[in-house]
């Protein structure tokens, strides 16, 4: 028996369990604030998955942006629109049964396709720090998207300001 393999799979299942359970809680919690906290748990799980895929930089970015910024943004929005977190009424709309059915079919389809396709495992080894290479590629191959991102952020910011200000 190969011990590292068993450990890796065990860790993977724990992380996957954390991700899926907190993802499920995100869409089922009645209280929106609780749903937001469950969302943070999901983000952590996804960050751990990135780590297992050796994308350390992305894992750190996941924590920094998704948890540190986007989740905080969502929590701010929840606080600003509080007072109508009706806990007595249902938080699920009328079409939920149909949605669940369609999604179950979708998942089954994706599951079967994933099992059918002969995926290649041709990933090379990562033997050194890859972040400097990421920086280099951002400045050469992906220069245009890199600069366009700043325009996108500017547009989003101005748009959000105009919509949100009093």
């Amino acid at each position, binding site marked *: 028996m190969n011990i590292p393999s068993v450990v890796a799979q065990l860790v993977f299942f724990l992380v996957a369990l954390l991700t*899926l359970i907190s993802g499920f809680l995100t869409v089922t919690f009645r209280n929106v604030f609780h*749903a937001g906290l469950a969302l943070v748990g999901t983000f952590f799980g996804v960050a751990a998955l990135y780590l297992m*895929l050796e994308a350390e930089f*992305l894992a750190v970015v996941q924590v920094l942006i998704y948890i540190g910024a986007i989740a905080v943004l969502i929590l701010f929005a929840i606080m600003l629109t509080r007072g109508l977190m009706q806990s007595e009424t249902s938080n699920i709309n009328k079409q939920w049964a149909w949605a669940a059915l369609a999604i179950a079919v979708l998942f089954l389809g994706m599951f079967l396709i*994933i099992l059918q396709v002969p995926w290649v495992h*041709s990933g090379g080894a990562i033997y050194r720090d890859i972040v400097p290479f990421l920086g280099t590629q951002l400045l050469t191959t992906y220069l245009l998207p890199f600069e366009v991102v700043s325009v996108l952020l500017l547009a989003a910011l101005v748009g959000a300001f105009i919509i949100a200000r009093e």
Partner: protein
Amino acid sequence: MTLYIPITYYLIIAAALFCIGLFGALARKNAIAVLMGIELMLNAVNINLVAFWRYGSPNPISNQAGIVFALFVITLAAAEAAVGLALVIAVYRSRDTVNVEEIDLLKW
């Protein structure tokens, strides 16, 4: 560590997370909860991108397309959340509700 886990595991997890997010986006009443569902879906997509980068690229160091794509998706998700939540707050201020079923002014 990667090589111990088949890529299908990651893809299935991502598919499941995507479906959970889709359910949240379709079935929740609260507009903010709908946005949370969309964030879950974007995360699921990112898992796929990174998994394909790690398993599919023979030289993952000099070709980090998966990471770069995931980075841009995260950026887009942030922009989307900022504008989307601003809309929710604006609607809340004028209509006093964040329930997507009651925001039906354009419906006839």
